[in-house]
């Protein structure tokens, strides 16, 4: 499921939250490697927890919100495709009906095309 949902576009959108995640991770590394005030069990544990808990919280929320939005987007697209498909089928039927009455159509069609072109050029 996940690889389908998290396509390139979605991952790009989610990158906005990767930046604060990276900043937090950066400070975890800095405080672990360069402890300016030394190590001490409880304060260091709290120090790291204060960074890791928001990190995990943000990562989880980003994952689930990204998944929810991407899934909903796929649903919308599927719905739009279904509507477009249905109208295309209706359109083909109409074309079929029109083609039965070909004699009158070509001239009108040509005129219409010509009008559209002239309108476009005016714009």
């Amino acid at each position: 499921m996940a690889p389908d949902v998290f396509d390139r576009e979605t991952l790009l959108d989610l990158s906005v939250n990767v930046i604060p995640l990276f900043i937090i991770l950066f400070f975890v590394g800095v405080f672990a490697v360069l402890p300016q005030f030394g190590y001490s069990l409880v304060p260091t544990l709290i120090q790291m927890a204060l960074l890791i808990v928001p990190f995990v919280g943000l990562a989880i929320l980003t994952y689930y919100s990204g998944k929810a939005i991407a899934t909903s987007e796929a649903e919308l697209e599927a719905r739009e495709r279904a509507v477009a498909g249905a109208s295309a089928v209706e359109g083909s039927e109409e074309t079929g009906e029109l083609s039965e009455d070909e004699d009158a159509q070509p001239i009108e069609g040509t005129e219409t095309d010509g009008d559209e072109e002239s309108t476009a050029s005016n714009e």
Partner: protein
Amino acid sequence: MEISGALLPAIPAQGAGVGTSGQLALTVLMGVFLVAVFLALTRAEDWRTYTPLAGGGYGESGHHVRHKPEGITRWLTTVDHKDIGMLYGLYAIVAFVWGGLAVLLMRTELFTPSMDVLGAVAGGTNAGNALYNGLLTSHGITMLFLFGTPIIAAFSNYFVPLLIGADDMAFPRINAIAFWLLPPGALLIWAGFFVPGLAPAQTSWTMYTPLSAEQAGFGADLMILGLHLTGVSATMGAINFIATIFTERGKNVNWANLDIFSWTILTQSGLILFAFPLLGSALIMLLLDRNFGTAFFAVDGGSPILWQHLFWFFGHPEVYILVLPPMGIVSYVLPRFSGRKLFGFKFVVYSTLAIGVLSFGVWAHHMFSTGIDPRIRASFMAVSLAIAIPSAVKTFNWITTMWNGKLRLTAPMLFCIGFISNFIIGGVTGVFLAAIPIDLVLHDTYYVVGHFHYIVMGAIAFAVFAGLYYWYPIFTGRMYQRSLAKWHFWSTMIGTNLTFFAMLLLGYNEMPRRYSTYAFNADWAPLQTVELLHQAATLGAFILAFGQIIWLVNFVQSWYEGPEVDGDPWGLRDTSLYGREFEWHERRLQTAVTDGGEEDEVATDGGVDETAAEEAVADEQSDE
């Protein structure tokens, strides 16, 4: 302590006087009364067939549409989300007036270094200082809890159901109860000023212990109780919004096309759900400390710093509770006058959620100078710096939305641009404060006051005005006077920047906050400069007040006399920016019963009518 001592012995004495049989009779009587009330209510109304009214459609019952009661009864009994939104709005404006008057008195006092005005009003220097402290406390609590949160609730109640295609809120009656808890809350909070014999609380809005635990007077107790009520109200509202946005969305609305304002309200509601109950608990603990001899925050046996941790664990998310929905309003309104869709819509959504989570991890940056372990302090600094990123992302998105756009400088658009401008100043000064070394220098100075006022007034209030102007045609059916609106904008913009930039400079001059006088020795600090800056801040405050009077006059007068609008007052119908709320507004106008008569041509704000006039001229020329 004295109060509890007086009250507690009275309870058993009263019980002994009544006697067991008397108590039993009272209990039975009360039970009968409650049953009678319940029966009367069930007879008066069928609770299961709620019909949202005035929407021009059918509700869940689907059979018929009843008209709302007339007059005051309508407003006292309404469960319609739009009516409740209006009530929230009215309530917030009343609070805004009180909070504004309080600060004008304070700024008047600060015009001169010594205690002059308030001393004369209260009768003596000490009484003047006490009054200043009371006004300071009331201003903060009123603006944050009685204006900020309710005005956002006004927008969300009115527009979220319309924007998501819901009939009403998920729990309309809880919605009404949540509002009706607020007026008693306000009365309790303000009681110290208006009830003879009570003194206003002098705790500041942060209510730091041991000051707040030991301060004598019933006014503080009532204020804490009132605050608790408003917290309960906000929590009920938040639960309602979460339920509404999750379960009541229309068929065509899902997470991918949910509007940005509803996203911010959803995030805000999540924050309220986790933050406000904690405030409620802390307030109860404070009340117990004050009245029942507990020692949660006592210097001996308890911890005053515990209060700060509990308070700021609520208090910092509260900042985002107040700022996220206004950001949503700006994200919603700005594109409509930029001629472009919001740039990076999903960036804004994800950064909103990021702010929501991270806001719970930064609370102790308000406490850098309390002597907490430097390792722990460093972690709070790191997360505080990280949370600046999502806010900056939003700012860049707003700017990019306007970039190369077809801008229309209507009143709502001007307020959106003002919001961005002020938010940048407020935000950048906040990033500096997030750095421990700078915070230790600037802590408790006017720099902090200037910083957060750039956010609460410069950003939040500006976005609120943007929303009020943008949706004015919907909730009044009329258009405001655009010249007055522009006067309002410019006076608010100039007043805000004059007042709060002066405060930033006062902070650099080490002027401490929360003082009613500053008649210090000129050898310690440049007194003349400080006085000049205070005078500039006071002048700015009066310019601000002038602007708000213009706004109030404009809104009230236009409500009665403004030209009636059609379903598309902003000329957006033919674009993809025509919102669901205006579609609803148009449907309402189409289904409304006409009363005959012609209306004048509607003049929309900001260039639309001019454009229309230009187009008409162009058409005439092309015809020729």
